[in-house]
């Protein structure tokens, strides 16, 4: 199952002018736990997808709301020459099609 099919919202946004943060909010705790168990959104996987060093990536699991949060420094600070996305709002797309194996 694709990540986009087992979440109610995946979004990205600036967390201040120098950091982008991605919220992956699952439809239920079952899929949230599967994603965690299968390490789908580990710092290493995210680093490989975006081509940034894994030590720059912080990930947080928030069981209460079945959400995984990923934060990393922007390559170009908000509004600087060449910044492609002033609000950081479209930086989540590459993780939408990650596959979670739906086995119980």
């Amino acid at each position, binding site marked *: 199952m694709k990540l986009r099919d087992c979440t109610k919202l995946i979004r990205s946004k*600036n967390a201040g002018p*120098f950091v982008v943060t991605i919220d992956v909010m699952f439809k239920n705790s079952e899929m949230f736990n599967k994603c965690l168990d299968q390490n789908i959104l580990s710092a290493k996987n995210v680093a490989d997808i975006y081509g940034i060093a894994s030590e720059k990536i912080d990930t947080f699991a928030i069981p*209460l*709301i079945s959400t995984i949060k990923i934060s990393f420094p922007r390559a170009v600070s908000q509004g600087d*020459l060449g910044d492609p996305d*002033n609000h950081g709002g*479209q930086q989540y797309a590459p993780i939408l099609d990650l596959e979670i194996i739906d086995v119980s």
Partner: protein
Amino acid sequence: MSGLRVKAIAGNGVLGSGFRESSLLRGMALGPDFIGCDAGSTDPGPYYLGAGKTAFPKVAVKRDLSLLMKAARSANIPLIIGSAGTAGGRPHVESLKEITLEIASENEMSFKLALIDAEQDKSTLTELWNRGKITPISYPGLDYEAIQASERIVGMMGADPFVYALDQKADIVIAGRSSDCAIYAALPIMRGIDPAVAWHAAKILECGAAAAETRSSPDCLFAELEKTAFEVEPLSGEMICTPQSVAAHSLYENANPFELIEPDGVLNIAKSHYQAVSSRRVRVTNSSFKPKTVKNAKLEGAVFLGYQSVIIGGIRDPMIIGQIDDWAGRLKKRLKSRVHDVYGKDSPTYHFNIAIYGKDAVMGDLEPVKKITSHEIGLVLEITSDTQEISNTIISLARHQALHLPIPEWSGLITGVACRHSPPFLERGKVYKFAGDSLMETSNPLDFFPCRFVTIMNGTEIN
């Protein structure tokens, strides 16, 4: 429930973004102790801080402010506004003050207005830097060079300047750059609410109805704080708060979902408990707050980069699209040579950026998809230089070079870019970037965020 209680209304997440008048009225019937509203953010980008401009249109700000002022004055409760005019510098506070006076004059209102300055003078900052009182957070941070290079620098105030203004019996507080939460934490803390409750409730209130399950449009939020717990509910009958929606709000625009760093201390919500007390109201307990031993303020600076001119266009020829990276490289080279032809040895320096929509314009270096599958691509050519005239000149040269840049597959003169406009370029004016993040020690915050008072009598400023 009995004992100490403070009730708060948040107008919305940004003054000028709108709320329903009916929601505000519903909140006023609940007997609030104050109304708060955030009026700024770095979210619209560095331009507003640098240029001293505001992101929301005056009429939209005036509409919201007018309703909030009338509600607060008729109930005789404080109206507290932070991060005035988007960036919270001196011109931003001044612009919101003018709108406030306009509303006061039109409605013959009387009140004591507090204006809190958040702009930091470079000479003071340089001295603080030399004394080691400014610590970069990001690399390189707002360091000595960035202080000198910045057009304008603001500090982000915590609760103390608000507490001072309210202690002095201000009816309306208009503050420069503020922690969003400080707007809402100040009055509850003054009244003896536990700081953990005050700061966590403030964090939920600061975006207005964003903490509701489905926020159909920006709107008001209501919170009721007790000594060790708070409850929150939306004021529109069509919205509800659930434990999940309230807990999820702490994620938004925040890198760490468990620890929220404020000028006054660190709010920890990792063990917070969220419980539904009705179908639309949520009770929050068990947050903690650790005060900082030395208070500090985050500094935000905007550095002037130059004047920019841009061209918007597109390419449909599959052979040009197929070699677009090479094409862009050749265009940069040709432009360089053409600029040298035109200006000779006095060639100005300029920055030329080519954004290619349909390839990687949205994500830049982070884009993992390398292959273009679209039948057309969009182009934005950007020139930034020291003057608008130079940028206009060089973007005009770039247009002509781009238009007729040859490709090996065609012989003869081609026209390879579809330009959107005539004249083809847009003047973007001054552009800025944010200077890095730093923290400035503020052992006495009132020294860094001075407050002045203005008395308004029947719509007229009397001192």
